[in-house]
């Protein structure tokens, strides 16, 4: 893990779980797999705190444990999983677009709690939805369950590995840690639950709970006493599936930009058909026949079979090679080349970054080198039709930023510099990785900047909050317009500044996503 990534992980953990968990988490990321006592000793925190931190981290799937010989349990942090925490809002928003508010809340609860049982999720979501509904209406558990089942069917939610059922627990001491197993088939198996009930609306008096201990509140007695029917079956959000969805979206929008709306719809249909059948790391989807595609097109689209075939041929012949033809049966078998598509998208991202950073002439040189693979200095000047001095300057600028690299080709075995060819080339994988690293670094910087701004303007923000409350109360009592104006002016620019940094934070995250997918695909 690079330093920038570790820094970002540390910031994220601190934001979500506090300083103690952050200390333990970062220590594990830095040092790899370690047993409990070593962690406590190295981080100089008390054993109790380390235990608590580890419980939290394991609950959220950020740390896994393994039993080694002699009963020593070692804990290992998953750095990439920590980085995914950046994208939680995006996952939640995706669930909202696909399954509306119910789906959104289910995914949000699962992400916030790490793992939960189905009954717990359904209950919580129903309660939350009930609160937002009008008075007198409540959310039925059945509806929430249905959405949950749909999420599982489309693989957005999956089961966590289970504790194996032990038949004889008194033969010898119990193991120091359970080994969790999960069967491929069981991962999306929903237990038969009959969840009957409606969401409960919290009384307004209960919300005023600051300082009031819970013991004094009347407890919700009935639900607690019943045994939970699906005890031990936990569910978690399947992040890979979300990534797949994002990837599909990116491909579809790329096709739409390059060609037209209809072809993007066709590609979207093909991707939808292979959603659950294609494993996440596959280089291309399962072959789909043209007849199948025709049948699965969305209802609104009434293009004839010939037109569909023409579109498919066009897509297959396109130099970008998003769609490939793999056979002729069934009217033509077509696949989507996922890895190639990701590669093109990553390349396009690199090109646009070069253009925005260095200018369009640099971008021309970059595209040229990409196309021709290896070029000498002189050739670059000739092909790009840019004067030598400028070309040199631009090449060296890009070289210093590691977008372009030099390849030496020696003429003699002693690699004498006067007798070696130096060729400029673009190594897409390493350039993508460099860009990704830069993105992480800038996100970390932005988070720090945001924290700094918040601290600086804390006084102002509190003031603005109070002012908002005053405005609200005054509006309720019908105050004059002028007074309201005056109060609003009390909020000044720093408040907006903070919002800006926040935004940049969020948007930067989107960029690094495609690059990550591309890198991941090549490695697999």
């Amino acid at each position, binding site marked *: 893990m690079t330093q920038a990534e570790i820094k970002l992980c540390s910031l994220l953990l601190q934001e979500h779980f506090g300083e103690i968990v952050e200390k333990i988490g970062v220590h594990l990321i830095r040092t790899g797999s370690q047993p409990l006592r070593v962690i406590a000793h190295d981080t100089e925190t008390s054993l109790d705190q380390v235990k608590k931190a580890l419980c*939290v981290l394991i609950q959220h799937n950020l740390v896994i444990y393994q039993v080694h010989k002699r009963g020593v349990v070692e804990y290992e942090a998953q750095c990439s999983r920590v980085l995914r925490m950046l994208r939680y809002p995006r996952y939640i928003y995706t669930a909202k677009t696909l399954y509306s508010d119910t789906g959104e809340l289910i995914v949000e609860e699962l992400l916030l709690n790490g793992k939960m049982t189905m009954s717990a999720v359904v209950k919580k979501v129903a309660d939350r939805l009930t609160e937002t509904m009008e008075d007198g209406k409540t959310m039925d558990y059945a509806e929430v369950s249905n959405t949950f089942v749909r999420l599982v069917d489309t693989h957005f939610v999956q089961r966590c590995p289970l504790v194996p059922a032990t038949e004889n627990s008194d033969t010898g001491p119990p193991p120091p840690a359970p080994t969790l197993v999960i069967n491929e088939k069981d991962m999306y198996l929903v237990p038969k639950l009959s969840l009957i009930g409606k969401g409960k609306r919290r009384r307004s008096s209960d919300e005023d709970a600051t300082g009031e201990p819970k013991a004094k509140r009347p407890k919700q007695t009935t639900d607690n006493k019943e045994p939970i029917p699906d005890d031990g079956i936990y569910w978690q959000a399947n992040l890979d599936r979300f990534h797949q969805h994002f990837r599909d979206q990116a491909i579809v929008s790329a096709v739409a930009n390059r060609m037209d709306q209809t072809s993007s719809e066709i590609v979207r249909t093909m991707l939808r058909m292979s959603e659950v059948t294609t494993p996440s790391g596959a280089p291309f989807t399962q072959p789909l026949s043209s007849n199948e595609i025709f049948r699965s097109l969305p209802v609104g689209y009434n293009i004839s079979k010939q037109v569909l075939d023409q579109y498919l041929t066009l897509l297959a012949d396109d130099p970008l090679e998003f769609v490939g033809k793999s056979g002729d049966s069934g009217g033509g078998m077509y696949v989507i080349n996922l890895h190639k598509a990701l590669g093109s998208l990553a390349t396009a991202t690199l090109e646009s970054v070069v253009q925005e950073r260095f200018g369009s002439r640099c971008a021309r040189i970059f595209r040229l080198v990409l196309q021709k693979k290896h070029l000498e200095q002189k050739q670059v000047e000739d092909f790009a039709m840019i004067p030598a001095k400028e070309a040199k300057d631009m090449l060296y600028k890009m070289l210093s930023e590691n977008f372009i690299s030099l390849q030496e080709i020696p003429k003699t075995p002693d690699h004498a510099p006067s007798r070696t060819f130096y060729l400029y080339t673009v190594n897409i994988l390493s350039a993508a990785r460099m860009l990704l690293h830069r993105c992480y670094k800038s996100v970390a910087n932005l988070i720090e900047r945001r924290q700094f701004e918040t601290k600086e303007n804390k006084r102002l923000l509190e003031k603005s909050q109070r002012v908002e409350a005053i405005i609200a109360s005054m509006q309720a009592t019908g105050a004059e317009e002028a007074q309201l104006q005056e109060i609003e002016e009390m909020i000044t620019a720093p408040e907006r500044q903070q919002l800006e940094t926040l935004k940049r934070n969020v948007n930067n995250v989107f960029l690094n996503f495609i690059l990550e997918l591309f890198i991941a695909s090549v490695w697999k």
Partner: protein
Amino acid sequence: MAGNKGRGRAAYTFNIEAVGFSRGEKLPDVVLKPPPLFPDTDYKPVPLKTGESEDYVLALKQELRETVKRMPYFVETPEEKQDIERYSKRYMKVYKEEWIPDWRRLPRELMPRKKCRKAGPRSKKATDTGKGPSLTNPADVLKKIEELEKKGDGEKSDEENEEKEGGKEKSKEGDDDEEDDAAEQEEYDEEEQEEENDYINSYFEDGDDFGADSDDNMDEATY
């Protein structure tokens, strides 16, 4: 080893043409310091994408940041003891739900071991929803007195406490694994008999109660 330098004149060891400089041309200056921290850029960054979906995601992110602070997974750093205990602090505490992990899924060593045992059944048994933080002081004191009475009465609880203490001390001294396992084994069996809510009661109490229930109290007379 320095060798012939071309009869006192500087000469490049490689073909300078290959890298693009013609002979005799002025080479760029050598840079002797690190690049500036905030260099001027000729090209300003592209403005951010704004739109409905971006605004929604932004709002989600802000909400999320607030929500996670209130979740039970957010572990507060224990504050140092203030010189003067502010009266208002007790009433400004943010109420948080408790969380018990599913111990069947976690390694046994992560279960917290308490210094002393509060023997006897509790009046309120919480299962999964968990219990709230400790009650206000007068009720607390009364409860403690009750427990001390019970402790004085029950012999078994005394034994348990001593075993616990012994086990804890052993583990503190850092003996080898077997002894630890044996002690943990004993404690594990004991804890199976106890209710799960013990975890919450000692674990989440404020600083003033933690450690105060040491075994020293056993020796004092109970009233």
